[in-house]
């Protein structure tokens, strides 16, 4: 893994556990997000398999109602907040600086802090299983059910865990926004940023503006549970929670899908050997989705009784999100059109994404038809819808990204044969699992039910779904094996294995600590491609003879000489971020177990102070003078 840098002013890659704990390198932080999320995916997937086992037959007896309710709640929470969001964060951390030609994110230590806080929140949430019971109020924790049983700490875990995850995400998002807006390489105007990074920006804005609302809701839930306030119970209003939750919850679903859309927008051009069709349209449609995503939250509340006018308004607004989303779909197909499509694994998964996401999106549009949704709401039809968008969309997209960028992370390919098995099993298993749920839902099977009676005709399709879910499980076992093995033994890939278009392919695999020997000067969208290819009079790509891919970085003839850095001080490692995060995590546990927990809160506060003070007094860079 260690690269020979030969120039001694280039920082070397440190090794050892301690170097990971104190790291402020965005690439390592990205890796840690990714690994945590992958582990969490297996945990949440295992929970899903238990759910499926329980539902295989009418009146299933595998799980108790109590266990089942905890499992589906944690399955949903984990998948959304601890799997898909962090996977997004993993890719963003790793690739935003590479995409915009920067050496790191704007605030490397805050970045590390975000990760550690995320990790501790994850630990808090998952540890609830063994410490008094996991949250069991559904992932959207509707009040007053969620505030009802004060004697159970379960929903305190929810309130605290989600709150801390929120803080971590807000910090990470502010970091990404500051990075993209202020640290782009010379020439990297906004309309030259790779689409993935654009989507990361949109996602960051969505989080920045939606998480505080959720935060207020969580505080209110927590106060109702612990301090006797009356936000949702008593004289309060249960629908207030629903508004606050979905004001966050709906933008959140676009937080989950936009990074995957960004990844697919990177992959499809590379494997079609054509630029993205209508780059500005794709970018603006992403921004439009972000804006519109804030205006449709109440489509989760059609049956709650908002009144016909509000329902009609939100119904129509919701439908219109199909428009910018459709633009993306059509532009992807437009990119493939007239191209030269190579069906490498990343491309296969991307096409899977497009195909399955359309199904999920269309079922979303049927939801937005309000009267229809009176029937579909809280039935398995919704479960089918969101797994198609989240799994068929999100997970397919992220897996595509993993196959695409694995060579950049490790310098090696993931095995193609195993990858093909993974793809086909996942595709088949996925459709077997979730397509039947449309039928179940329309035929009246409500979601979140730990058992269903005989005579309703639910057995057959449930059995199909269970079989399908195990096929998905198998496919991911193959994937896990592939990841573990290929890291050390995969086929060597070189720096630019796919003939890539964006800047990350211009540097070595894995990238050096400082990313770029020289900050690149950017002249085009897909700048790296344009360094390799010109177009002939017909508009076809022609490879330029003198530049060989992957070695551009070594040549020093690009860019002005003033961009050559004399000293390349990278931010120095620091353990204060993890200390501060651990302090806050400790406080979190204290808050769960109030009033006894106040002592723990106090201890946690002290640790946090230590971390924060140490952090602020510490010099910023190794070479940086302090005092």
């Amino acid at each position: 893994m260690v690269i020979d840098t030969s120039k001694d002013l280039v920082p070397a890659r440190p090794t050892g556990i301690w170097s990971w704990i104190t790291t402020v390198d965005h690439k390592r932080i990205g890796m840690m997000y990714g690994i945590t999320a992958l582990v969490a995916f297996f945990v949440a997937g295992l929970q899903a398999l238990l759910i499926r086992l329980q539902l295989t037959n009418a009146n299933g007896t595998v799980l108790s109602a109590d266990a089942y309710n905890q499992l589906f709640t944690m399955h949903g929470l984990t998948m959304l907040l601890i799997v898909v969001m962090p996977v997004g964060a993993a890719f963003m951390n790793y690739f935003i600086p590479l995409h915009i030609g920067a050496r790191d994110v704007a605030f490397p230590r805050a970045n590390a802090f975000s990760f550690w806080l995320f990790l501790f929140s994850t630990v808090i949430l998952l540890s609830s299983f063994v410490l008094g019971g996991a949250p069991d109020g559904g992932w959207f924790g509707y009040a007053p059910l969620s505030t009802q049983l004060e004697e159970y700490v379960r929903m305190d875990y929810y309130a605290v865990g989600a709150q801390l995850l929120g803080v971590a995400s807000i910090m990470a998002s502010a970091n990404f926004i500051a990075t993209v807006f202020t640290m782009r390489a010379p020439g990297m105007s906004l309309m030259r940023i790779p689409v993935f990074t654009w989507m990361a920006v949109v996602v960051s804005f969505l989080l920045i503006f939606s998480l505080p609302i959720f935060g207020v809701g969580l505080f209110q839930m927590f106060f109702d549970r612990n301090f006797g306030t009356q936000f949702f119970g008593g004289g309060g209003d249960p629908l207030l929670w629903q508004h606050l939750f979905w004001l966050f919850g709906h933008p959140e679903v676009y937080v989950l899908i936009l990074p995957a859309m960004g990844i697919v927008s990177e992959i499809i051009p590379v494997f079609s050997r054509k630029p993205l069709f209508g780059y500005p349209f794709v970018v603006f449609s992403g921004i439009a989705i972000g804006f519109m995503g804030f205006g449709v939250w109440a489509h989760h509340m059609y049956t709650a009784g908002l009144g016909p006018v509000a329902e009609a308004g939100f119904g129509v607004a919701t439908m219109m999100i199909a428009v910018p989303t459709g633009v993306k779909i059509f532009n992807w197909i437009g990119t493939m059109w007239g191209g030269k499509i190579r069906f490498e694994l990343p491309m296969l998964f991307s096409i899977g994404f497009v195909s399955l996401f359309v199904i999920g999106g269309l079922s979303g549009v049927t939801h937005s038809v309000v009267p229809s949704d009176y029937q579909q709401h809280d039935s398995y039809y919704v479960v089918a819808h969101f797994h198609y968008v989240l799994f068929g969309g999100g997970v397919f997209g992220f897996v595509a990204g993993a196959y695409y960028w694995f060579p950049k992370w490790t310098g090696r390919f993931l095995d193609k044969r195993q990858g093909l098995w993974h793809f086909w099993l996942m595709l088949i298993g996925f459709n077997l699992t979730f397509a039947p749920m449309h039928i179940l839902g329309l035929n009246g099977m409500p979601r979140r039910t730990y058992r269903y009676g005989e005579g309703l005709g639910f057995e057959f399709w449930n059995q199909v779904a269970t079989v399908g879910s195990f096929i998905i499980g198998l496919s991911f076992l193959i994937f896990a094996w592939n990841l573990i093995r290929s890291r050390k033994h995969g086929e060597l890939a070189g720096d630019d294995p796919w003939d890539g278009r964006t800047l990350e392919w211009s540097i070595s695999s894995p990238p050096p600590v400082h990313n770029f020997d020289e900050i690149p000067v950017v002249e085009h969208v897909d700048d790296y491609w344009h360094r390799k290819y010109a177009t002939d009079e017909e508009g076809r790509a022609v490879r330029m003879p003198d530049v060989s891919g992957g070695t551009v970085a070594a040549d020093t003839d690009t860019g002005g000489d003033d961009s050559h850095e004399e000293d390349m001080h990278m931010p120095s490692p620091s353990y204060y971020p993890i200390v501060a995060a651990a302090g806050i995590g400790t406080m979190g546990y204290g808050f769960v177990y109030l009033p006894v927990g106040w002592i723990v809160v106090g201890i946690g506060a002290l640790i946090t102070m230590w971390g924060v003070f140490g952090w602020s007094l510490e010099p910023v860079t190794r070479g940086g003078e302090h005092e």
Partner: protein
Amino acid sequence: MSSQAAPVEAHGHHDVRPIRKAAMWVFLGSECMFFGSMIATFLLFRNETADGPGSELFNIPFTSASSFVLLMSSLTMVLAHNAFGNRDARGTRIWLAATALLGTVFLAGQIFEFTEFVHEGLTLSSSSFGSAFYMLTGFHGAHVAIGVMMLMAMFYLSLDGRLYDDRGLNVELVGLYWHFVDIVWIVIFTVVYLLQV
């Protein structure tokens, strides 16, 4: 939270100050949503007093005075920033202290007000109105308190002339935060106090 790292040289020709300011402004935008949610909650419950005490407890002259104090702390803050910009360490120090002092006076007023109200029977749990009122003004107060602490940290740094070191947190950022806390109170004062009487 607010003391963020800044990789100075790592970014070559980038001036780090705009990066931090951008992050601060984004954070403030986010805070708008935070306070907006609580203000909306208060509006929702403005009449839900469960037949207990409600807005009739408000002492408008008193709160007007403390609002005025907070408003003027924005003036002292901007003067501190101005002095800081002119590399006038003494001026900076004096105005920082004045700002922290005014903030403390505001907090004292709020504590006084809360104890009054609790005596009258308006508590966090007495009604939805009480819950929303204390949550909103309480979180604002917490913001003021954090602001005062940051001001004192700046003051302390100014004593041994370390104010101009490159650091995650500096007078300008603290100033932005402080003004923000003030403008939030402008809205709260109107919505919670003036509109209710």
